[in-house]
Structure formats: C-alpha cells, structure tokens
C-alpha cells in the first residue's frame, strides 16, 4: 500500500502530471498568514498542521483511479482522445473535426468542477453531452421551474451593451490601422526601447553622481564645444542657454590675496630678529586691546565717591550743627539788573523822517558801489597775491583728491561691514621664544588652518562675519529628584 502511494506521489511530482482539481496547482492565492503555535504538543500537530493540500491531492488521485482506472498522466493518448466527427447531433455540432476530451466532459458532468484551463470549447460541447448521458432527461422539478410563458421575455438590452463600446472600437480600429502602417503605441515603443537597451548592456538612465562622490569623473570643461547655431533668444527662452553672467560679478570683492603667507617670524625655526618683530607686533595688538578695555572700565566707573556711613551721617546732620558764623553773602548787584521787555508803542514816522532815511539809503548804496569800483581797480595791483591764492587753493583740492583716492584704494583691501557683526581680526599666531621647538619633530603647530581659512573668507568679503548661534532654551529646566534616589540620599 505504502509503495503504491509512493508511486503515486512520484507520478504526481513529475511535470507531466495532470490534475483534475485546479486548486492543486500549488500557488493557491489565498495563502493566509501562518498561525504561530507551539508544535511541541501532539495535540497541536493534528490541530494546526495544514494537511489540506495533501488531502486534496490524494482525493484527486483516488478520483482519477476511480474514474479512469489509473492516473491520466500515464494513460496513452489514444485511450483518452477520439476524433469527434460530430455527425450524430447535427443541430449543435459544428462541422469541423474537433478533439474532445470525452472523459473529461463526463467527469465534469458528474462533479461539476469549475472550468479548467483547457477548454472553453469544452463548455460549448457540454450541453450536447448532457443529452447523451444517462440522465439526459431533465428532472421534473427543473421543468416546473422553467418559464412556460409563450411570450418571450423582453431582452435586457443593457446586458448586451458594453460601455464605451463605440469609442473602444474606434480606438481599436485606429490602433490596427496604425499598426498596419508600422506605428506602435507609445507603451510598446518604450518597452522595445527598454529591451534593446537591456540587450546592449548599457544602463538605461545615467544616474547622476553626487558632487562629493570620490569616484566621480571629470572631463575637459574648457574644450571648445560645437558652436550654437540656433537663435540665442529662442535658446534663452526655452532655458537651453543660461543667462550671461554679468562681468561685474567676476570682480573680486577684495584685492587681498587668497593665501596670506605669514611673515618670516612665523617660521618654525625663525631668525632671531624677525621673530622679535613678530612678537612686537603681537604685543602692540595686545596693548591696544588692553587700552581699549581700560578705557571702557574707566568710562563705566562710578565717578563720585560712594557714600560711606560717615558721609551719610554728615549729610543728615548738615545744618543742624552750627559751624561758626560764616554766612554766604548773597550777591546783590544782580537783582537790579532785571530785563525789561520792549515797551514799544512806536510812533509813526513823519514824512520828513522818511525822506531823510531814503536819502541816507541811497547814499549808502552809492558809497558801496564806489567802494567796489575802487576795490576792483585795486585788484589789478593785487594780481600776484590773487594768483598765489588760486594756486594754493588748487593745490589743496588736488591734495584732497589724491587723499580721497588713496583712501578708496585702501578701502578695497579692508573688510567691509556686511552684516550685523563687524569683522574682527583674529589673534596673531605667535610662539614665544621658549615655545619654539628646535626641530621639526618637536614642533607644536599653532592656531588652526580651518579657522584661518574661514577668517580669510570673511576678510575678503566673500561671506559676512558670523558667530556661532547661541543656544537658547525655550523652557526652563526643572530639576526633580526621583523618589528612589531621594530615599538613598
């Protein structure tokens, strides 16, 4: 028995095995998530192990044996198929010669399996075979249930209609027409392209490489490419050509060099005097800083003496204790000199007065004009001094111009005020005499180049001076002791 079963299994595992049941194909769609159960109890073995597929398979084998007297896969074709000439039932059978799986149809009738993959054809034959079978006569119950009205039921039009049928038909027609012309739909075209690319071994899309990829490739950027022939306006509008960079932007915002080499005093093994020079420079900077600090302290200092006990007491008793008879004398002279406002109710001028005044005015004007005349005449004799005057004036303007120009030149190398913060020159990197190492091995580098570079960028006005953002806590921190901790302490 066991041997027979094994044999059946073997047969089933072979590729040629045909099964009756469609669900036996192995990949049943309704794979449920496996329940996790302990398998260490025998009870669970029976309960939770899924043996349905095995059962089904065995059922199938049994059925085949029952129905066909053996496994179908092992039967010769001749025993399974016959040529149906279709002469016996003319009204339904088409004239063509067909292969009909007669056994199959029989089985289907008996157990009514769902439609198999093989046959649509088979179903068309089903009705005829039913008639031929043992129970070809319909059951009475079925007959009763048949509609016996003479009037045919109205056709359900909608059942025969396809939504959008016209459109779809048209589209299909168009596609067919285009296909005849050799034009493929877009989807097909893309598919073919992809296939061709895959076949040729080239990557379909060149994935862009990140800028900091260490394996990135470079090329000759400045080689003369093909000159553009299209209309530049068109290219610009379609963003195929970038807008020309204004020349103004290629000027550097400062004339300072990118790398400022430290002076000879900054050598790791410096000459004595250049080292001293550097030290002096650093010293001067420090002194300047110190002075500024001192000045600030001085300005912020409380100027008057702070009240002591003694002084406050003195203040309280001021005037209570008589101190001799020194009485301040009040200046009396000032009191007389009070200012009196204009008490003006001016009287009207008489005609005579007016006339006199006018004459005076005219006389004055005449005198002035005369004076001017004379002066002008006199200037003739002052020519030399005037010329000298002019010269000095011109010289002064020239000097000022030169000064202004020099200032402007100097400004070019100065850090500008570009934001909230002012540029502050970093401290000079200096090693004191006793810090200097005698050899390269013992050298301790001073300062950080990273900071140096950062400062240089600021100094050259490439970025605005910045400081590290200060950490600001939004909420106050509340400290609590955990109870367990409190108990110990």
């Amino acid at each position, binding site marked *: 028995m066991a041997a027979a079963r094994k044999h059946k299994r073997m047969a089933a595992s072979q590729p040629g095995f045909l099964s009756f049941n469609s669900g036996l194909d192995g990949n049943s769609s309704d794979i449920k998530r496996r329940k996790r159960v302990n398998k260490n109890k025998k009870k669970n073995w029976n309960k939770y192990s899924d043996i349905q597929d095995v059962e089904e398979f065995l059922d199938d084998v049994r059925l085949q044996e029952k129905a066909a007297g053996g496994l179908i896969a092992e039967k010769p074709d001749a025993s399974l198929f016959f040529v149906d000439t279709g002469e016996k039932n003319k009204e339904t059978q088409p004239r063509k010669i067909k292969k009909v799986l007669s056994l199959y149809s029989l089985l289907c009738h008996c157990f009514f399996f769902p439609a198999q993959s093989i046959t649509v054809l088979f179903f068309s034959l089903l009705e005829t075979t039913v008639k031929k079978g043992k129970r070809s006569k319909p059951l009475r119950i079925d007959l009763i249930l048949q509609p016996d009205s003479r009037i045919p039921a109205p056709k359900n039009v909608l059942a025969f209609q396809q939504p959008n049928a016209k459109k779809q038909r048209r589209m299909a027609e168009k596609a067919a027409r285009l296909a005849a012309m050799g034009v493929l739909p877009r989807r097909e075209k893309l598919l073919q392209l992809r296939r061709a690319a895959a076949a040729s071994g080239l990557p379909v899309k060149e994935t*862009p*490489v*990140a*800028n*900091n990829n*260490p394996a*990135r490739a*470079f090329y*000759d*950027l*400045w080689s003369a490419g093909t000159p553009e022939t299209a209309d530049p306006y068109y290219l610009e509008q379609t963003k195929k050509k*970038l*807008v020309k*960079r*204004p020349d103004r*932007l*290629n000027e550097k*915002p400062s004339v300072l*060099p*990118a*790398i400022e*080499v*430290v*002076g*000879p005093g*900054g*050598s*790791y*093994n*410096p*000459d*004595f*005097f250049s080292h001293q020079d550097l030290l002096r420079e650093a010293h001067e900077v420090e002194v300047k800083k110190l002075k500024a600090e001192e000045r600030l302290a001085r300005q912020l200092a409380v100027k008057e003496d702070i009240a002591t006990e003694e002084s406050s007491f003195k203040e309280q008793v001021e005037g209570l204790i008589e101190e001799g008879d020194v009485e301040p004398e009040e200046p009396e002279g000032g009191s007389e000199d009070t200012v009196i406002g204009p008490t003006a109710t001016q009287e009207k001028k008489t005609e005579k007065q007016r006339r006199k005044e006018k004459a005076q005015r005219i006389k004055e004007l005449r005198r002035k004009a005369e004076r001017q005349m004379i002066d002008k005449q006199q200037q003739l004799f002052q020519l030399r001094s005037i010329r000298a005057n002019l010269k000095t004036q011109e010289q002064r303007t020239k000097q000022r111009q030169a000064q202004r120009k020099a200032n402007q030149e100097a400004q070019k190398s100065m850090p*500008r005020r*570009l*934001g*909230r913060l002012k540029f502050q020159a970093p401290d000079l*990197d200096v*090693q004191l005499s006793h810090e200097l190492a*005698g*050899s*390269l*091995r013992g*050298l301790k580098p*001073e*300062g*950080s*180049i*990273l*900071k*140096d*570079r*950062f400062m240089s960028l600021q100094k050259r*006005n*490439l*970025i*605005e001076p*910045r*400081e*590290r953002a200060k950490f600001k806590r939004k909420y106050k921190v509340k400290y609590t002791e955990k109870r367990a901790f409190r108990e110990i302490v």
Partner: protein
Amino acid sequence: MGGLQKKKYESGSATNYITRNKARKKLSLSLADFRRLCILKGIYPHEPKHKKKVNKGSTAPRTFYLLKDIRFLLHEPIVGKFREYKIFVRKLRKAYGKAEWGGVERLKENKPVYKLDHIIKERYPTFIDALRDVDDSLSMCFLFSTFARTGKCHVQTIQLCRRLSVEWMNYIISSRSLRKVFLSIKGIYYQAEVLGQTITWIIPYQFAHDHPTDVDYRVMATFTEFYTTLLGFVNFRLYQTLNLVYPPKLDGQGEISLKPEFEEDYALESESYTEKLSALSASLARMVPSAEEEETELDHFPIEGEDLEKMEVREKMEQEQIKQKKFFEGLKFFLNREVPRESLAFVIRCFGGEVSWDKSLCIGSTYDATDETITHHIVDRPSIDKQYINRYYIQPQWVYDSVNAKILLPVEEYFLGVTLPPHLSPFVEETEGDYVPPEKLKLMALQRGEKPQTEEDEEEEEEEEEEEDDEEDDQSEEEDEAEDEANLAEMEEKRSRGKSLSVKVTPGKAKAENRKRAAEEEKAEEKRLAIMMMKKREKYLYDKIMFGKKRNVREANKLAAKRKAHDDASKEDKKKKKKKC
C-alpha cells in the same frame, strides 16, 4: 513748479539694493539654501555707500545684495534643484515616520542631485581664469583631506579631497613646478609656478587638528563642494597638458617594482592603488610613452643687436632654471620614520630625487635603509645607532632650505644633533636697504657661487665677514651721494692725466675698453646731470626719497650691529661654557 511730488526711497540707491531676507523670499529658498546658492554662484553681499538711504531711513545693520545680482540668480537651474531637495527631505522624513522602508528605498534611489559644471564654466570662462583662482581650492582641499572621519563633514567629501590633492601633488611632481616651501608654525606653505601662474597653498601638519568651534562647517563644506569640482576640472586639464593619463595611473615599470609581498597588510586591495598613488614614490603613466622627457628647446631665430643679447640672457636663465628643476637628481634619500614623510617625499620628488622609507611606515617604499647607494638619510632625532659611512645623516630642514636656495647647501650645518640655522622665509623679498639677516647674506653668496667656508675657521671668518659687512654698510650711507662725485672726480683725473702725458708718440695699443665700466660712468653722469636739472620741487622730493633710503640703511645697520652684539654675547657664553667643561 508743477508735477508730482517725488516719494522717498523709490529710486536711486534704495532700489538698487535688496536685503538678504527679501532676496531669500524672492527666490523662495531657506536661508541655508540661499547662502549655499550665493557661495556656489559667487555672489557676495555688498556694502552700500549710503546705508541709511538704502535701508529706507533705518540704521539697523543689515546684509545687502545688489538687486541685479539676485535677479541674475533667478535664472539659475540649481534653485529648482534646491526646492526639489527640500521636498525630497520632507518625503523621506514622512516615509521614515511611517516606517515605509520600501518607500524610503525608492526615495533614496531617486535623490535629486545637482551639478556644478555649468557654474564653473560660467564663473571661469577660460582655463587660465580657473587656474588663477585655484589657490583657495587647493588650501581647502588639502585641509579637508586631513580631517578625521568623525562626522564633522561627509566622509565622501574627505575622500574626494584626498584624491584631488594627491592628483595635484602628482602633477606638480611630474611637471617639476614647485618653487618655494616654507615651514611655518601654522602649516607648510608651498608655491608653484603652473603655466606661468604663481600658485600658493598651505598644508596643515599631520595630526594637528582640534576642531575649532567658531567656524561654520556648513559654509566651509559648501565652499569645499565648489572647490573640489573646480580642482577636479583643473587637474584634468593639467594632466592633459602634460600628456598624462587621467585619472592618474602609475607608470608600468614602476608598478612591477612596487610589489612587496606584504602589501595586503598595509591596505585593502581596493584601496592599495590609491594609497600607492598617494605615496608619491612612483612616476605616472603617460598617454604617449615619451622617450625620456624630451627637453623643449627654445626656437632659434636670427636676431640682431640688442635682441640677441636679450635672447642670450634669457637662454641662460632658461638653462639655469632647467638645472634648478632637477638639482636633487642622482641623490637617493631615505626618510626615517619620525620625519614628515609626505611633505618630504613631495619636495624631494619635485626636484628629481629618489626617495624611500621604511616598509612598515607606508606603502610604496622602493628600497631599504640598508641600501648602499643611499646618499642622504633624513633623521630628526638627536642620535642614531647604526650609521653607514657613505651617506650623510641630516635633518629635514636641509631639504627645504636647499629647495629655497635652489642649490645643494653644505650639509655640515644640518648634521645630526647640530643646532640648525634659522629657517628663513622664501616669501620675503628684501628691497634695497632693508635689513638682511646674515644667514641670508651667506646664502646669497653661496648662490653666487662663492665657495663655502670650512668649518674650522668659519667662526673667525664669519666675524671678519661681518665686520666687513658693517663697514660696507657704513660706507653705503655715504656711497649713495658720494658715488656720483667720486665717479666724476675719477673721470676728471683721468682726463687731466691724459693732458699731462709726455708728447712722445708711442705705437698705438688697442686700449682694452672696459665697456661695463664706461657704461656705468655714463649712467652716473646722466644721473648727476638729471639731479642738477631738477626743478626745485622735484629736487625736494628727491632729497626726501634719498633721505628715506638712508634712514632705512641706517636702521638696517643698527639691526646688524645689534645682531652682532647678540652673536658676540652668545659666542662668549659658549666659550665660557667650553672653558667650564
């Protein structure tokens, strides 16, 4: 009379500028992105002349940009990429939050990437423009390549920087274009001349980093991103000019010899090639295998007169330069393990020397310390146990000083345990009348080809020399003014001598015409006359200049005297010590 009243701040400088925040909003970017964009495009803030006008009456300190610049930025395609990136980050965050790992994968695959190629082309229309601006990028790349991989910046950035800097060094080696080296307390300054451009850069000492906190790493990383791209393209072009293969490949012959058995111990298989490249010990492969570096001969054109002289001078200079370019040739160096290997290997190979080191120190060593043909062994420790008799044991400074002097300096001053002479900066160029340290004077004398003194009588001679120097300096004060007079007097004397000669006629002798001397005299005469012809004001200026020069000389003399006093004092101390001993 009539017309509308003009409103304030509607024209002029107020409309030419835009504040940073407004610009940011106009581009609809975050502040960080805006900053990055400005750095990449080379658009810098601008200080307006009349701040109050620009700021519409307010005096608050703000950052201003030119409006035209910002308008220009609007056309930049990268702006779109920045926005895309922002959206990408948002989506990614969402996917992470929902634990949709498939979605995360997909998003990461389609991460938006931007290119800087077009920006570089735009900012540097020609290759020479780019080369002129390469100082910054070199310094930054060398700096970033020394960073530890600690997350201060992206690891990939560090690797890229390392790759580019190694490529650059290899180029400098094969083009022999290094000119100056200066060991400062900050780092090592190098200067090279590449295609006629002087390029300076600084390299930090190894292991010198403590990361400063007051540096904005994001800004620096952005600059580095731009500079690495620039340097990559520049490197490519430079390699092309030398017909070298890019990315650099080691020369075939060198590769075979560079196969020690324990290579695997040093680096992974994948990394060993780049490591070998960065060892700088082998030469690079060329596109066209050239027959032993052909020297480019100057073309000769038949030229007459002055041009010919000039040409000769130039030719001589050229030949001297060629000679200087390989004055280490034929020397074999061995680096002890305590010296800075990379820097020394770079410098020595730049001037044609051969260099090697201990096998366990670094990959790419070509010969052992036991090699008999080694000429110089570079050591930086007070003494060494096993010494070979046929090589010099010298301190590393010798190499650098020789490079700066462009000759092989006498090795005596650089022996083991000897107090080194000061390392002078090659970047200082003394003008006439400045104080020149005696070491430099000696060096200049050596360069002129005067013979170096032997060690025994060096001290005495030095003293003498210094005295002479002093005298010379003292004289030089008067010399300037006296020179002209003296020359004139001499000439007159000669003339008068000619007159008082006896009348006897002797057979004519071709008078050896001292052309140089005559020329000098002529020049002096001209100068004197020019001084005489000066206007009063110019004369005043001239006197002032001369006075300034003399003052400089006087100060230099004072310094020299001080130095002498200092040296004397130190010498006496030494003598005393010796006596005590």
